[in-house]
C-alpha cells in the first residue's frame, strides 16, 4: 500500500498541499496586547535607527516603508528576515530578548539602512 503511494507522486502531493493550506487557515488568531513600536523606512534609512524595547517581553514593530522599493528587514541577532514591499507596512514580531544590543539592517540597501534594537 505504502509502496504504491511512494510510486505515485501526484496522489501524495495534492493531499499534502491541501493539508498545508488547511493548517494555515485553521490558525488561531493571536492576542495582540503587546508593545508596538512604529518604525519608518525612508530614503533607505530606518527611523528610529535605535529602537529601545523592554527586556524579556515580546514586542512588535510596525515597519512602514515609505520608499517605492522593497526592503528586507534582516537580523541574524533577532532571527528575523522579512520583506517589506515598497509603500506598504509590515509587522515584525520580536521574541522576548535578554538585555543587550541586537543589530539589524535592510538587506537591499545595507550601506545606509542600519539600526540596532536595544533591549533593557
Amino acid at each position: 500500500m505504502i509502496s504504491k503511494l511512494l510510486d505515485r507522486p501526484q496522489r501524495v502531493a495534492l493531499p499534502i498541499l491541501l493539508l498545508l493550506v488547511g493548517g494555515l487557515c485553521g490558525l488561531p488568531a493571536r492576542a495582540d496586547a503587546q508593545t508596538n513600536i512604529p518604525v519608518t523606512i525612508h530614503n533607505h534609512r530606518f527611523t528610529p535607527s535605535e529602537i529601545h524595547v523592554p527586556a524579556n517581553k515580546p514586542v512588535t514593530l510596525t515597519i512602514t516603508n515609505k520608499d517605492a522599493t522593497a526592503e528586507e528587514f534582516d537580523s541574524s541577532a533577532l532571527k528575523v528576515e522579512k520583506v517589506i514591499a515598497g509603500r506598504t507596512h509590515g509587522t515584525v514580531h520580536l521574541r522576548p530578548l535578554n538585555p543587550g544590543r541586537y543589530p539589524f539592517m535592510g538587506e537591499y540597501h545595507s550601506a545606509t539602512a542600519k539600526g540596532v534594537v536595544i533591549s533593557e
Partner: protein
Amino acid sequence: MLATLLIVFREVIEAGLIVGIVLAASKGVPGRGRWVGYGVAGGVAGACLVAGFAGQLAALFQGSGQEFFNASILILAVVMLTWHNVWMASHGRAMAQQMRAMGAEIAAGQRPLIALSVVVGVAVLREGSEVVLFLYGIATAGGLSGAAMLTGGALGLAGGVGVTAAMYFGLLTIPASRLFAATSGLITLLAAGLAAQAIDFVQQAGDAEVLTAPVWNTSWLLSDSSLVGRLLHTLIGYTDRPSGAQLVVYAATIVVIVALMRLFGGRRPVAAAPAAAD
C-alpha cells in the same frame, strides 16, 4: 554593480547548492534534466509572482502571510526530501541488484523525480524572489544603468552556477557505490535544516512561542552573515544562535527520516516489482 553582483551571487549559490545535491542524487536517472528544468522554471515563475505580490502576500494572516508562506514551502520541501530518501531506502537494494544486471540507467528509471523537482522549485523560488525584489528596486530607483545591473546580475548568476557545478562534480567524485549513501545523508541534513528554518518562520510570525531563546551563540566563531556561514546554513541548517525549538525540530526531523528509511529499507527486493499486489 558590485552590490548587484554580490546579492545575485549569494542568492544563486544558496539555491545552487540544493540543485547540485539534487542533480547528484538523481545521477543516471533518465529524464532528470527535464524534471530539474521544470523545477527551475517553476521556481523562477513563482519567484516573479511572489515578488510581484509581495505586498498582498505579507498582508495575509494579520501581517504574517510571508512567514507562513515561507514556512509552508519549506515544510513542503522537507516532505519531498523525506519521500525521496525513504523511496531510495526502500528501492535501493533492488536497484543495486538490477544495476549489476542491466546498468544504472534503466534500474533507476522509476524514481519519484517530481519530489526533487519540487525541492528545486522551492529553492529557486525562495532565493529568486529576493533577487527579483532587489533588482526591481534598483531598476525603479534608477541609481544604476541597465547595463551595469545586467552585467552585475549576469556575473553573479555565472558565479552561482559555477558553485552549483562545483558542488555537483565534487559529489560525483564519490564512488558510485557510496554516492546514494552520501546523497541520502546530505539530503537528511538539508531537510533537517529546512525544517528548523520553517519553525523559525512560524515563531517569527509570533506563533508557537516556546523555546524561543537562543541556546548558544557561536557568532564569534562563524557568523550567519559570513559567506561560509550562509553556505552551511543552506547545506546543513547551521545558525549561530539556534533557538531551543530549532534544535528540537532539527533533531526530530533527522530521527523521523532515519526511522522511516529503516522501516521501509528493511523490505526485500520485491519492491522492484510494482505490479505485485501489496
